[in-house]
C-alpha cells in the first residue's frame, strides 16, 4: 500500500513535505483538519498520506508562525476549526515551492545520470 510505504520506509525523507502540501491546499480554499488529510490523500493518489497525528501539530505550528489563520465555523450542525493562508503564508509557500522545485530538479538530474549537477541552493 503506497500510503504505508511512505510512512514506514523513511519518514525523515518527508520532512517539510506536509507543510508544503498543507500551505498549497489552503492557498486555494479554507479547510479543516479532516478535509486536509483527505484532500492530500486524494490529490496525490494516496502516494502521500499526511497522518492524522501529523496534520494538527503542523497546522498549529504554521498558525503560531503567522503563516495560517483559523476560525471556528459551523457547517451542517458541526462546529469545526477552518484554516486559511495569510499573506506571510503565501510568501512562505512561494519560498518552499522554489526550494522544492530546485531539489526535485537536482535529484531528477542525478537520477538520470547527469555528472555535473548544479549546486542545490
Amino acid at each position: 500500500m503506497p500510503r504505508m510505504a511512505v510512512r514506514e520506509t523513511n519518514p525523515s525523507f518527508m520532512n517539510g513535505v506536509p507543510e508544503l502540501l498543507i500551505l498549497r491546499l489552503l492557498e486555494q480554499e479554507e479547510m479543516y483538519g479532516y478535509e486536509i488529510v483527505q484532500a492530500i490523500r486524494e490529490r496525490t493518489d494516496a502516494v502521500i498520506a499526511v497522518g492524522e497525528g501529523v496534520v494538527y501539530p503542523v497546522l498549529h505550528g504554521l498558525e503560531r508562525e503567522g503563516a495560517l489563520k483559523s476560525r471556528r465555523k459551523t457547517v451542517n450542525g458541526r462546529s469545526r476549526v477552518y484554516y486559511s493562508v495569510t499573506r506571510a503564508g503565501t510568501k512562505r509557500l512561494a519560498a518552499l515551492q522554489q526550494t522544492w522545485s530546485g531539489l526535485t530538479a537536482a535529484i531528477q538530474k542525478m537520477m538520470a545520470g547527469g555528472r555535473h549537477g548544479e549546486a542545490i541552493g
Partner: protein
Amino acid sequence: MAKRLDELREKLLRAGVAPRHVRRTVMELEEHLADLRAEEERGGQSRADAERAALKRPGSMDELAQRVIAQPQFRSLSARAPWAVLGLGPVVGLGALWMLALVILVTGWMVFMPNSETPFVRVAGVAAVYFGLGRALYFAAPVLVGWWVGSVAARQRLRVTWLLLGWALLAWCGGMGQVTAQRTMESPSCKPIAILVGFASPWTTGHLLHVAVILALTAPPYAAWRLWSARTAVE
C-alpha cells in the same frame, strides 16, 4: 475514544505543553476521530468497529504526543520558568491584593475619619463594613493567592517542589507582613498620610502561627486534587 484522548491530554500536560494548546489539540482530534468514525460507518462497519478503526488511523497517541511536545513554542510559561510563575508569581499576586486592601484603608480613612490620627480605630455602620472588606482582603490574600497557585500547578501538572517553595514564600510574606498607617508629624496642617508595609521584626510566636495557618488553609484543595487524581488514575 475518550480514554485515549484523556491519556493524550495527560501526556501533553505533563510534558509542559500549555493547557490552552492541549485543549485545542484534543478538541480538534476528537472532532477528527468523529469524522473518521463516520467515514468507517459509511463504509459499512458497525459503530463499535468503526470506532476501533478510527482510533487506529491517527497512529499511536505517543507518536502524536511527541510531535506536539517537539514544538517548543507550545510549552507553557510555567513549564519554561516555574521559578517565575510559582516563585515570583505568588509574591506579585500578594502584593497586588495587598495594594487593593491599602487603597480601601486609605480611602476609608480619608472619607470616614479625616481627622483621625490613625485608621486603626473602632468604627461602626458603613465604615465598619468598608474597613472590614479591606481587612478581609488583606488577611485572605495569601490564602487566595495560594489557591490560585495550587490551581495553576494542578492544571499544568507542575512539580510539587516548586509549588511548595511558592507556598512557603507566600506564607512567610503573608504571616510576617505588617502595615502601619499614621499622619506624618512634619506638616499636620496638610494631614499627609504615611503607609508603611514591611516585615515583622523580631518574629513572634504569633507571626509564626500566622504563617502556619496560611499554609494549613492553602494546601487542602491541592492535596484533595492530588488524592482524587491518584484515585481516578488507579481506576
